[in-house]
């Protein structure tokens, strides 16, 4: 068991813990912070999978923007001022569903014979190659995604405009 593997297990433990924090914590802001932890751990997993560029993008987008947006939303919606039940009624069902999904996944994963599971062949992925592929093979989806982003920005601006009579 190599050092990276140990680090991987540690990071994945952090990730799962963060996820559990997101789902279980009584305080919404706490769960947001837990989400940061979890996503950072995801970035760490990317690093371990030798995709640093993706990891950094993850950090920039999530750690920078998404989490800030979420915290803003929490502030704007007064998550703290109104203490209330954070969980809906259908907890047991959800638990059952999630557990069933998990068992199904794990069964499927462990039940399958993975061709590439041999860990010695893995060499780090240079991000230049990723860039080449992204802008050659995936150029059109890239443009489409940029359009999607523009549309989303317009929509967000429109939505967050104050109503008439405000201001």
């Amino acid at each position, binding site marked *: 068991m190599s050092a990276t593997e140990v680090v991987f297990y540690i990071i994945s433990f952090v990730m799962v813990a963060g996820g559990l924090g997101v789902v279980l914590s009584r305080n919404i802001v706490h769960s947001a912070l837990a989400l940061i932890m979890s996503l950072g751990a995801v970035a760490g997993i990317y690093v371990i999978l030798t995709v640093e560029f993706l990891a950094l993008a993850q950090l920039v987008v999530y750690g920078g923007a998404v989490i800030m947006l979420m915290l803003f939303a929490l502030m704007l919606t007064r998550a703290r001022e109104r203490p209330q039940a954070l969980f*809906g*009624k*259908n907890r047991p*069902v*959800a638990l059952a*569903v999630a557990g*069933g*999904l998990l068992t*199904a996944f794990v069964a499927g994963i462990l039940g399958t014979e993975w061709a590439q599971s041999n860990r010695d062949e893995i060499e780090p992925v240079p991000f230049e190659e990723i860039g080449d592929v992204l802008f050659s093979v995936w150029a059109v989806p890239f443009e489409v995604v940029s359009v999607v982003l523009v549309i989303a920005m317009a929509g967000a601006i429109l939505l967050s405009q104050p109503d008439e009579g405000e201001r």
Partner: protein
Amino acid sequence: MYWLDHAYVIPAIPAIAFFVLFALGKWLPRGGDWLSIIAIGTSFVLFFFVLEAHLDSVNAGLGGLSNVGFDWLEFEGFKLRIGFTVDSIAVVMLAVVTLVALLVQVYSVSYMRHHGKPEPRYWWYFAVHSLFVAAMLALVLADNFLLLYVAWEGVGLCSFLLIGFYFEKQSAVEAAKKAFVTTRLGDVGLLIGIILFWRATGTFQISEVIAAAQAGRTNELAPVMSDGYLTLATLMVFLGAMGKSAQFPFHVWLPDAMEGPTPVSALIHAATMVVAGVYLVARLLPLFDVTPGALQVVTGVGLTTALFAGVLAVVQTDIKRVLAYSTVSQLGFMFVALGTGAVGVAMFHLLTHAFFKALLFLGSGSVIHMTGEQDARKLGGLWWRMPVTAATFTIGALALAGIPPLSGFFSKDEIFVVVNAGQSDVILILMGVAAFLSAMYMARLVIITFLGSPKDLAVIRRAREAPPLMVAPLVILAVLTLFVGFFAFDQVGDAFGFPGGINNYVYFPLPESFHFDDTIAAATGVASLAGLGAAFWLFWGKAERAQRVAAFAPKATALVENKFYMDDVYQAAIDRVVLPAGRAVAVFDRVVVNDTGINGPGDFTRYGSTWLRRHVTGRIPDYALFMVLGIVAAGALGFLVRV
């Protein structure tokens, strides 16, 4: 010949007029009365074309019959044909209906307005008038039971609407309801009869039905209808005729129908409503003839009605009621004639009666319109106030009384002739009594209305001669009343002599055509004059003799004045039998049909949905849960399928 095959245009024109008036009569100038009158006038003019074509075909020996139509519905092995037939009685009826309706409408134009201002629903009055005429004409021309029944009901509906024209008055509403329900009793009978005939013969064509009946009667090899069946069906049809023509048990609605405007009464009594029954029996007379006992029933009913209504007419004090009962009894005469098998005679009396009854009603209408009073006891001495009305009214009265040489005399004399030939002497005597009574009540009416001394000065002071639009129809009708009787003689060969002429091409020719029987003519004349004399003896002046006679037999008087308690009997029947049965039916309807049959499924759906819709909580988490469950199920399915 063209118009012989296109006689259906005659009812079509007033029908179109009705729809136009119905749609936009309110906005037409003068309420569209001109439209309705023009329609009827056109029909009247067309009648002459039809008559000419008819006579041509008769003289050409084609029998003057025409039968055009179109297939309305077509089923498996069953074709429903809407057809129009023209024969002599139809032609006579066309004449009567169109002419009388035209005059009545002209009359109505000024009757339905007071001091030049039309009454409310003026346009509606004329619209229904047009529909009434159209329905009657369609009934006349119908050659199959179905169209006839539709027109029949249309006539009933229009009479209902017109009798209840002043539906602000409770009595008018009651009268309309009474007329409708009473005639409905008969109509149900008619419908049953039609259905029975259809069941037996599988057709609605009147001629085919008659042929089948005759075949069933004549040759025993292929009996179509058993005697009982035939009798039942025929009597059911006759029930309808009785209802419409206000024969004995059903006569109660006609006097109350006086609640409507007087021109409407004229139309109903003279041209359209009540004569429909007579016309029906006349058209179906072959059927009655082959039915054992049917003719006797017709005779009996007619005779009873004639006497009964005559007696009642003597004691009535309301002008219009007197006229109503006189109509009833005259219809009785016609039925007696029909019962004797003399279609031509009956139609002839129908014709003359139409004219002088219309005349009488319009005259009384002008009296009522001018004085606003229709109680004979308050009237009197109007002769010099409204001479034309009085004169024409008297002419009509004398004609009804059967005074020679007015038209009534001839037609009634015809009836006596055929009765003498075809029935027992008892019936003849009783008919004489009826004639005596009719002369008596008409004379009484004239005496207490126009002659004698005025009893109510206010009424007298109000009385003026009617406006020309009302007087003109009176005069025309008076002239007709004077001269139409001479149709009886056959001047122009066999064709034009009226009764014989008709008899030549109704379904079976009566042996004798008109011939002037001295003894009978003398007898009827004596009877009528006796009636006149009795009336004068009783009612001239203060009429104390009448009171003494009444006091002589108080019970009988009370009986007569209460119309033999017929209305009470009906009322009792309705209260005791009809309403409880109706309540029972209503309970059944509400409980079984409505709550279970109709609300049941609705309630089931509603409660089911209230229970079912709980899964639509509107809470997004639940939807998410359902979504995930669905995805999981799909995945599991895929997994199972793959493995």
